[in-house]
């Protein structure tokens, strides 16, 4: 397939490339690259395909059919099983924890990044150094004291117990990326606003924020992915089923459904669906933001 498209379209693509103003002038089709690309695609698609078709089989079909062949009579029964197993509750918990962590984290990180880029003085300087060091703190290493603090504060088994440390661990990377973008805002803009009598606070929200909006969206998405998929904090800081978030619920479903693998995989599909929708809607923003964010 790859080879066929690459060679058969050789001339055609070359003409098309020229008309597209191709950046890297290519004289021959990149057969090796194309081949590698398609192989990787197969590796990505196979597990996804397997999960989806298996989730549409009933148990008898699962034990009786070829694992990689789609069911002749696809059924949504597993999805009903999962939805009846309190799935909506877990989903809402994930939404609450994610929004509750990401929004405050982005706000405080933006303020800190603004101060780091525009301000001076010992406090700001040390804070910046601390945040940079924070990038290298393995989250796992702090889990025992966090568990201790959360239990002492009587927050154990609450959603707030997940939100507070999640905010803290989102701050270093957010400050780093936001300050990289804020440095690109021309000083003259701030100067002219100051001459108009604006306070720093006004400048931050009226000038800096709109200019680095793409970066803000990027770190919001990046942190949301992390919190949404986070497993360790929920595992250690919550206990009761009604405080479960999605990743933890998948793990629990394994015990609950035991040999009903199609139902477990239906839960995997359902838990990923919201992010797939988000990806379809905001793909460009996510991809361009992430690529720019780590290449400054």
């Amino acid at each position: 397939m790859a080879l066929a498209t690459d060679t058969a379209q050789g001339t055609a693509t070359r003409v098309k490339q020229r008309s597209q103003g191709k950046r890297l002038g290519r004289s021959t089709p990149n057969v090796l690259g194309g081949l590698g690309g398609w192989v990787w695609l197969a590796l990505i698609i196979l597990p996804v395909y397997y999960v989806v078709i298996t989730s549409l089989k009933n148990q008898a079909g699962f034990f009786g059919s070829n694992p990689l062949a789609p069911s002749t009579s696809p059924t949504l029964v597993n999805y009903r099983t999962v939805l009846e197993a309190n799935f909506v509750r877990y989903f809402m918990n994930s939404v609450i924890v994610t929004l509750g962590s990401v929004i405050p984290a982005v706000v405080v990180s933006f303020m800190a990044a603004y101060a780091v880029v525009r301000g001076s003085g010992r406090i700001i300087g040390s804070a910046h150094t601390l945040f940079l060091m924070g990038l290298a703190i393995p989250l796992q290493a702090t889990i025992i004291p966090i568990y201790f603090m959360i239990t002492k504060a009587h927050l154990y088994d609450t959603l707030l117990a997940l939100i507070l440390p999640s905010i803290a661990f989102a701050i270093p990377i957010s400050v780093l990326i936001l300050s990289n973008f804020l440095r690109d805002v021309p000083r003259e803009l701030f100067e002219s606003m100051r001459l108009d009598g604006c306070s720093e606070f006004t400048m931050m929200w009226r000038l800096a924020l709109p200019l680095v909006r793409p970066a803000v969206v990027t770190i919001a998405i990046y942190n949301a992915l992390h919190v949404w998929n986070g497993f360790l904090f929920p595992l250690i800081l919550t206990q009761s089923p009604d405080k479960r978030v999605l990743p933890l619920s998948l793990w629990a479903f394994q015990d609950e459904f035991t040999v009903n693998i199609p139902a477990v995989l239906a839960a995997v599909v359902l838990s990923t669906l919201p992010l797939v929708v988000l990806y379809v809607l905001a793909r460009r923003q996510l991809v361009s933001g992430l690529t720019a964010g780590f290449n400054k």
Partner: protein
Amino acid sequence: MKVRGARAEGPSAWMVVPALVFFVTFAVVPLLGVLFLSFTHWNGLGAITWAGLESWRTALTDSVTLNALIVTVKIMVYSLVVQVPISLLLGVFTAGNQRYRAVLAVLYFVPLLLSSAAVAIAFKALLDPNFGMGPGLHIPVLAQNWLGSADLVLFVVIFVIAWQFVPFHTLIYQGGVRQIPASFYEAAQIDGAGRIQQFFHITLPQLKYTIITSSTLMVLGSLAYFDLIFVLTAGGPGYATRLLPLHMYLTGFRANDMGAASALGVILVVIGLGLALVLQRLGGNSRSASQLEGA
């Protein structure tokens, strides 16, 4: 709050305070806490008693700890060796402009959306010797007990890690490649350099800083493969995939020895900060160098 040394203009220091409060409370204090707890006895529920170096002795004389360190280093090195070339090549590939590459790129990034728990569960089912892809493809070689054999399991873990994390690094490399000025390639073409030569003489040197960034995230991230391995193998079979963070969790929350687990946590922090410093050194030099080359 007035800060001496701050200029009259410019933001005041209070703007960093909210972020600082969160970060100090839930990251810096626990960091000091884990050091303190490593000199105590605590079962996770009762009173905390002073233990001197006893918890350290427990942690360091446990043969499983040494094994966990070796497993951690193995996974770190192998995943770096596997992921860097793949994500670099895929990044260069997806930075091209053909329409079909854009379509591929959309699909490449799907694993980014899955939680580690979801990925682990999916692969557990897929690798099942009776109901997974082995019998599905009718290839006996693939119908092995992948997760139950101490010899195979590490390779499976490395593969699954790559499957989940390569997309993210591909994105970073894609962005890096797109920042290379087109004039470099035009000049090279005029000089008659082929694609392979262009790759080695332009793309690779220009990506030096990107490689450092991506590798740093990879190495520090490898301390965080906890979620994936916890669900995929729970550290087994035996101790074959019990890496340091997992060993720490099991020591503290399953064997109820929070003191020894904290000592392991301290070792984890030291490794993390140490690696970050080393990579920072590499990165600091390369950044100025690559900018000079770009001039």
